[in-house]
Structure formats: structure tokens, C-alpha cells
């Protein structure tokens, strides 16, 4: 059996402020695992505890209780960190360094000899589309360029696990697509990716596993294919719909939308045969019939309690 790359077992973290009674629970009793080669999305609304969890995973913060293991080691262990590429939420940089100098510095931190890594740095700079900006100090970079150099530093040292906190933040659509393509390439290369993002349709395309947290608590964790199950609703598109049939459909719990392409009826899968027969009998032309698949965004909105105070 393969050891999980990331393991969270009953992890709790509370922030305490001096001179204040009680604390703020950032993360409460969270447990999940990420297997090797998986791309895992770590989702939650703002303030859900995602960054706190990632900071604990990286060993920047210590949990109050519970256990975290990365490659079987405790967070912060250099044996684990040697296999991790990390991109923080807001990638901070040394203002006086250029992109290649920053990468050389990080290579030295990884225990490599930077002077021997010219081609590697050149390739990474090219990969993140920063060729031609080698002599420009990072302080003069745009937000997207900073994010790209951050991604380049995360890819240094060919990591087995990539921990990316909002990797597409600050990027234009083309930049976002490049990051997604990169993630797909990493997935094909068998790397494990643990990323937090707010752009759910993009996450849905590439992730194998989803972990959703809200108010510091685990709401749902599992494989994407299992979570976005199909089969409970179908969509029938017809050219016309009589008033009687519309009445029946609404009473059966269907939703009806009219568009230029036709009338879309979303109805429970159990009523498929009855609905089809009624539509045929009424002389409607059925343009299409598709099983409705819930999206990650729908699931997320369904699970997460936006703005409501906890009971």
C-alpha cells in the first residue's frame, strides 16, 4: 500500500489574541488524505482556514492538536521539504533581486550549486514566459509576472509534491490557462498537487480529489468523480411546449428555461420515460436529452454556508 503524501488527522488550530478571552478556531478537527499522483483541490470560502491549514502543512504554524504528516514526516522536516515545491498565497520577493537571481538563491537553499544550474534556470524562466525580463528587478514586475516567477521557484528542484495557494491569482486568462496546462503536465508526470483556488470550473477540469472546508471544519472530502455524481436529473430540450405539459412538468418538480436553442426542461431522472412519452404524444420535437451532472461550483455553493453565522 502506498503511503499518503499528505495526511491530516484531527487537526485543530486556534488563534489566541493577548488580553482577549477565548480564541478564534481557525481549523477544527480536520482529517483527510492525499495519495501520490493525485491533484487535490482544497476549497473553501475566504476565512475558511485554507491558508492556516497550508501553513501548518508547510510547518510554518504548529497545530494545537491532531497530527499532520507529509511523505510520512512531520511538517517542516527537511526530508519532506526537499520534495515540496511551494507557492504562497501572496508570493513575496526580495525587491533587489532579479528573477534569475531569486531562482539561484532558492537553488542554493535547496542545497544545489547555483552556478551549475544555468540551463535549468533558463528553462524555468522560459516556461513561465519571463524571457527577456532577466535583468529586470522583481519589484518592477507586474502582479502576473510576480506570480509566474513564484511558480518558477516552486518548480525548482523537480518537486514530488506541489503545494499551491491560489496559483492563478493575478493572472490574466492566458496566464491562467498556462498554469492549468502546467498542472495537467505535472499530473501526467505523476506529481502530487495540492492547490487552493476560488476558480472552481478550472479546478474541476484537472482535480482528482476535493477537500472542502468551511469555518475551519471539514465539509466534504473525496474523489471528484464520486462527489459530482450523475443520474438524479436529466435535461430535455424541445422546440415547443404546450401549457398543459408545462403545468405537469412544473408540478413534477421540473425547471423550465426558454432560450434561442429551445426549451430546456430539467426533470428528475425517474420521470424520464413518462416525460418523453408525453412530449412525443403532444407532437413536440425533442432536440436533445442529456443526463445532468452537478458542477463543482454547484456542489460548493450547496455545501458552504455563505455569510451565515454558525449556530
Amino acid at each position, binding site marked *: 500500500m502506498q503511503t499518503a503524501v499528505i495526511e491530516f488527522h484531527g487537526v485543530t488550530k486556534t488563534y489566541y489574541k493577548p488580553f482577549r478571552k477565548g480564541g478564534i478556531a481557525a481549523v477544527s478537527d480536520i482529517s483527510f488524505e492525499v495519495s501520490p499522483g493525485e491533484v487535490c483541490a482544497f476549497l473553501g470560502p475566504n476565512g475558511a482556514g485554507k491558508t492556516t491549514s497550508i*501553513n501548518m502543512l*508547510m*510547518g*510554518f*504554524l*504548529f497545530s494545537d492538536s491532531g497530527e499532520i504528516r507529509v511523505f510520512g514526516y512531520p511538517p*517542516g522536516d*527537511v*526530508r519532506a*521539504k*526537499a520534495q*515540496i*515545491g*511551494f507557492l*504562497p498565497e*501572496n*508570493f*513575496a*520577493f*526580495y*525587491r*533587489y533581486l532579479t528573477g534569475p537571481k531569486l531562482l539561484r*538563491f*532558492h537553488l*542554493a*537553499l*535547496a*542545497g544545489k*550549486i547555483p552556478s551549475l544550474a544555468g540551463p535549468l534556470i533558463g528553462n524555468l524562466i522560459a516556461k513561465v514566459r519571463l524571457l527577456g525580463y532577466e535583468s529586470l528587478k522583481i519589484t518592477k514586475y507586474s502582479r502576473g509576472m510576480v506570480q509566474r516567477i*513564484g511558480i518558477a*521557484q516552486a518548480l525548482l528542484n523537480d518537486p514530488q509534491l506541489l*503545494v499551491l495557494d491560489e496559483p492563478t491569482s493575478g493572472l490574466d486568462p492566458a496566464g491562467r490557462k498556462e498554469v492549468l496546462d502546467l498542472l495537467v503536465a505535472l499530473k501526467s508526470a505523476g506529481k502530487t498537487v495540492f492547490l487552493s483556488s476560488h476558480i472552481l470550473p478550472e479546478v474541476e477540469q484537472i482535480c482528482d480529489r476535493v477537500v472542502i472546508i468551511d469555518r475551519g471544519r471539514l465539509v466534504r472530502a473525496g474523489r471528484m468523480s464520486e462527489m459530482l455524481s450523475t443520474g438524479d436529473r436529466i435535461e430535455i430540450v424541445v422546440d415547443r411546449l404546450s401549457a398543459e405539459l408545462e403545468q405537469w412538468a412544473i408540478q413534477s418538480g421540473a425547471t423550465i428555461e426558454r432560450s434561442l436553442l429551445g426549451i430546456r426542461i430539467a426533470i428528475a431522472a425517474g420521470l424520464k420515460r413518462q416525460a418523453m412519452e408525453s412530449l412525443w404524444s403532444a407532437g413536440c420535437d425533442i432536440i436533445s436529452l442529456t443526463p445532468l451532472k452537478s458542477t463543482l461550483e454547484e456542489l460548493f455553493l450547496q455545501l458552504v454556508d455563505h455569510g451565515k453565522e454558525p449556530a
Partner: protein
Amino acid sequence: MKIRAIALNTFVSLVHNKIIILFSAIFVAVILLMMTPLLAYKAMATRETASEVQSMAIGLVGVIMSIVSGFGSWLSAWAGADAVWSEMKSGTILAVMARPVRRWEFLLGKYLGVQMLMCTYVVCMFALSYLLSSMGGAKIHSSPWVLLVYPLVRYAAYSAIAMLLVMFMHPVVAFAVVLVISTLASIVPPWTGAIPLGPMWFRKILYAVLPSTHLLSEARFLTITQAQLKTVAWTSHLIALAYGLDYALVILLLAMWVFSSRSLLRD
């Protein structure tokens, strides 16, 4: 390799630090201003007034050298406090500590970076001492290493204290505390009773706890008026310097211990 990279990066970062640049600019301006009367004295000297002008000039050189030495204490305290805090404030520490770097390696690298800055400062201070002495008509008859190593060890102790304090407080407060400590340390020796600091037992405790600036002062071996090194056995130097390094090491280890269990995020 990792510690060296962090030390070099810290040094470059401190050289680019706006507060350090500002302080240094003010310091250079003050030194230049104070050199003006020194040059004026020299220019005014006639055969009759030569010895009087020379003694005034040497007095001024002594004051300037004290200021230079005092500024070194400020610089070491601020650099020590800011080196770690600025990384936490900006968040650059996160990408650094995500690398296979142990916390003690990071802190040691930071500390060595601060010492690189202080080395540069001490070398400049040394050159200035010789320059001023020659301008003031005196000669320094001393082993140069005393003027180099003693301040360096003293500053090493101050920066270690600042690094420890910044684990618990804002760097400005840590900086101020180090200054208070350095001032206290200079007036606390039990044999200097000019400033009332409570009963003798209290003074003795303070003297034991605070870094002995008296012991680590190069001024012990240098009389500016004569600009000559007092003859002291090498074992005496060894003991004094070992004391300073030991003090700095203990404080640095304490800082490393605190840092090992501290959040890397700004509180």
C-alpha cells in the same frame, strides 16, 4: 551552502534597508560636520598655539570615535532586530522556509549576515579612526586587531540580544530595549558608583546578566590622547573576547530555541 546563501542575502538585504541607509546618511553627515572644526583647528594652528590646538583636536577625535562606536551599537541592534522581522513582515520567509532549511540554519544565516554588515562597519570605523588620529596629529600605536575584533564581538552580543527580543516584540521596541541594555551595561559595573543604581547586590546581578561593555570595549586598550595601546597579556585579550563570544552564543542559542517553536507568520 544554505547558511552562506541566507547570510549573503541578509547582508544584501540590510545594505538595501531604507532605515539603515537613512541612519548611515545621518551618521556620515554628523561625522562630516564634526570634522569641520577639527580641520579648522588644524588650519588655525600656529607655532605658538600648536600644542593647545592639538590637544583640542585630539579631544574632538575622541568624541567622534565614541560616536562612531555608539552608532555601531545602534546599527547592530537594528540590523539584528530587523533581519528576521522584515522577512516575517514581508512574507519572504515562507518561500525560504519551504525549502529544506532548518529553522536554526535560517537564524544562523541571518545572524551571520548581520555580522557581515557589522564587519564592514568595523572596517570603516577602523579606517576612520586612523584617518582622524592622523588628522588630529596623533599616532595609534596599537595592534590593529584590537580595534577590529573588540567592537565586532561587542556588536555580535548586541545583535544576538536584538534577535532574541524580536521573537517576542516589535523590532522598534527590541531596538530600544537593546539600547537601554547597552546603556545600563556601561554604567552598571560595581566599581563605577557615580550613578546610583540601587544596592550593590542588585548592581552585581545586573553586571552578571548584562553584556559587559566595559570588558568588550577597545577603549580599555587605547588612550586617545596618547593613542597608544596599553600593554596587556594576550591571555587577557583571549578571556575578554571569549566572554563576549560566549555571551553572544548563549543569546543566539536562546533565540534559536525560541524560533524553533515560533509561528513564522507576523503576529
